[in-house]
């Protein structure tokens, strides 16, 4: 079409080669490493085995997977409970302000992840600002232990990933035809019924996209559990981290990553299918109308 710039293939080549060398090849290597034995002194012995994968499903490790899924699941639910109303409020704001409010809602997300997590250490520690706020309101008992709990980890995850939900739901809401809302009202539906029967179902793809992002990012996270959570083997991310940097069992670490990636890929593919299907149904409905 435009030979003037050179062939598309040639333009894409440097970037694709870089991705091959620093993304595809390393990931393939991890995939392969999961099926080798651990060397006597760390390292890898190139003998094929299922041992690592079998061990990843040992009740001890399966338990950590389930626990991670539980924490990530709770973080997802809370992020939706906070993020949906926020996105709805932004979508209902005067049109000329929407872009600015949305930018401000996402801005904290672009600052350093460690710093955003550290902020919660300052707020939640025993002599932290929350305790002081309680004291100021007349509380005299023991300072509450808020930090180094599952709750702190969940708050940290919600805080860090909330913008994903806001963006995803807002983009679904902004594509919504405002006439649907009016039609529902004209047919006698109250505000809540309109929301439940019209707006919510139509914005489900946005909800699903936001939820999958929060869950996927949370379940593989190791910084937040390490800084805000108690104990050592908190979540899968920490377990993987330990296999590589402490236990020096790279094949087992690779096997754990393999399971983690499989779970995440399955969720992303499922979300993609749901989105395609809803888009298809909507197209049919539009044709029928």
């Amino acid at each position, binding site marked *: 079409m435009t030979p003037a710039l050179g062939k598309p293939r040639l333009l894409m080549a440097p970037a694709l080669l870089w*991705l091959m060398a620093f993304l595809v090849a390393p990931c393939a290597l991890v995939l392969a490493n999961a099926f080798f034995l651990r060397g006597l002194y760390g390292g890898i012995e190139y003998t094929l085995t299922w041992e690592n994968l079998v061990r990843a499903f040992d009740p001890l490790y399966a338990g950590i997977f389930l626990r991670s899924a539980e924490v990530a699941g709770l973080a997802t639910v809370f992020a939706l409970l906070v993020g949906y109303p926020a996105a*709805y409020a932004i979508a209902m704001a005067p049109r000329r302000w929407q872009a600015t409010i949305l930018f401000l809602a996402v801005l904290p997300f672009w600052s350093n992840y460690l710093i955003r997590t550290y902020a919660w250490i300052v707020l939640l520690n025993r002599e932290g600002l929350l305790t002081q706020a309680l004291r100021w309101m007349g509380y005299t008992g023991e300072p509450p232990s808020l930090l180094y709990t599952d709750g702190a980890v969940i708050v940290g995850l919600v805080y860090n990933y909330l913008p994903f939900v806001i963006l995803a739901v807002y983009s679904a809401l902004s594509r919504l035809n405002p006439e649907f809302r009016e039609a529902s009202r004209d047919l006698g539906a109250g505000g809540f019924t309109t929301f439940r029967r019209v707006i919510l179902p139509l914005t489900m793809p946005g909800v699903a996209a936001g939820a999958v992002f929060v869950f996927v990012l949370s379940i*593989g996270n*190791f*910084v937040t559990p390490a800084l805000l959570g108690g104990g050592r083997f908190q979540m899968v991310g920490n377990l993987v981290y330990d296999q590589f940097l402490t236990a020096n069992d790279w094949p087992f670490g690779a096997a754990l990553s393999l399971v983690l990636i499989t779970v995440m890929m399955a969720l992303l593919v499922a979300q993609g299918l749901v989105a395609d299907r809803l888009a298809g149904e909507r197209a049919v409905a539009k044709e029928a109308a």
Partner: protein
Amino acid sequence: MRDGRLALTIVLTLVFAFLYVPIGVLVALSFNEGGLPTAWSGFSFKWYAALAHNGAILQAALNTLIVALASTAVATVLGTLLALGIEMRRRKSRGLEALIFAPMIIPDIVLAIALLSMFAMLDVTMGLHTIAASHVVFNLAFVAAVVRARLKSFDWSMIEASTDLGATGFTTFRRVTLPAIAGSVVAGALIAFTLSVDEFIIAFFTAGAGRASITLPMQIYSMLRFGITPEINALATLVIAVSVVALTLSQRFNRGMVG
């Protein structure tokens, strides 16, 4: 109707308080003379002054700058070319889209251990160069995404016109294509720079042993794990300021308000 508007305002106020109070507290504490989060003892710049005399932090800041500039430069060129190549193609390939989307969603820990495994197997000496090369992976994906968004509204017939008028491929790129996408290229580069400055996990795994190639986020992590000093509030404030400035600029370039 009026009740609805009030409820929405309350929701927005609460959500923004949730998003900004924790960061605001850090910024306020960075100016607290006593340094303790428990009591305000007067306004002071002394923690900023302390930062300027902390050799380890200055070295880490310099390392971060080197990594961010190098990876942004490479990623901006590769990402822009990639965007042009993809948008010029008539046929859309799902596999290609997935490959370019992957760096944005792959969990940092997975990419980090994958790169570490590869560098170790190939016996590559790790340091700032391996961190920068690794950062290019996700940076080029973000640059490409921003530039592609701009190219969606690009009038490709301008290129044909330029060629018909006798311009060479390079002249057309310099005089037609580049001016049209320049804003988005700068916006993408600023995003890449921010991501690289803030990235911790991949840097942590691909930095190699020793203190020589510690970046700022690695320094912050070790401060958080092994002893929080009041200096960290000042450092946090500066790092947040850099991100906010870069992102705001990026937004303006992308809308074409500047340049």
